[in-house]
């Protein structure tokens, strides 16, 4: 509750939808977000892409990504709206702040670890170190089993 929840919303519009419709829907979504005291962080239009499989009768679609902060009520409302709109053939809304924060934390921890290793004059980087360990173990088990 302390920090705002961040969500990523991706929706696919039917390939028949015009530029105008795409911008209209974007504006509509933005207004809903602001109505629910949310904030739009980023929006990305991936343009027309081929779908991995057919959805309805469509083989391609226009992808739009919106990153925003807000509440659960907001996502519920967006979900409801997008379900109703016919030109949207698929949409997905996921909460990302927790995962991103976790990723950030791991990265920071690794940074600290690297600094410590440098300070101690030890070799830096987990890759080669772990690789060597693995190699040793592997060889041993190989010999044991053959």
């Amino acid at each position, binding site marked *: 509750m302390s920090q705002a929840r961040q969500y990523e919303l*991706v929706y*696919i519009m039917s390939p028949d939808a015009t530029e105008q419709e795409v911008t209209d829907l974007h504006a509509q979504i933005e207004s809903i977000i602001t109505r629910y005291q949310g904030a739009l962080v980023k929006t990305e239009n991936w343009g027309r892409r081929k*779908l*991995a*499989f057919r*959805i309805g009768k469509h083989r391609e*679609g226009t*992808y739009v*990504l919106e990153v925003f902060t807000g509440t659960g009520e907001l996502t519920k409302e967006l979900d409801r709206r997008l379900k109703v709109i016919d030109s949207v053939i*698929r949409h*997905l809304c*996921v909460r990302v702040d927790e*995962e*991103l924060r*976790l*990723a*950030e934390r*791991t*990265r920071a921890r*690794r940074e600290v670890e690297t600094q410590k290793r440098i300070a101690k004059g030890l070799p830096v980087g*987990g*890759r080669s170190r*772990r*690789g060597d*360990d*693995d*190699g040793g*173990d*592997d060889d041993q*088990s*190989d010999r044991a*089993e*053959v």
Partner: protein
Amino acid sequence: MAEERRGRGGAGSKTRGNGRGGEKGGPRRGMFRRRKVCKFCADKVDYIDYKDAKMLLPFVPERAKILPRRISGVCAMHQRKLQTAIMRARTLALLPYSTD
């Protein structure tokens, strides 16, 4: 690889041995087994993005099924995250559910 081995030891080495032999499709004597290291740990990937279909593609070969980690060598934590990412990508038609 080594970790996986240790983890499975308790489950019964007999069944494991059988499974392995079938997988390799031949006698293991004198065969060099490639060391498997989790790709995400090695590249220090913290967040597996479901929007990056190119990155996920090697983990859904041919039939578009998720590659088991006994083959890919991905660690448990990253396999879990990978699974979520692949399932999300499938919802968005970035990856196929199946191909034939």
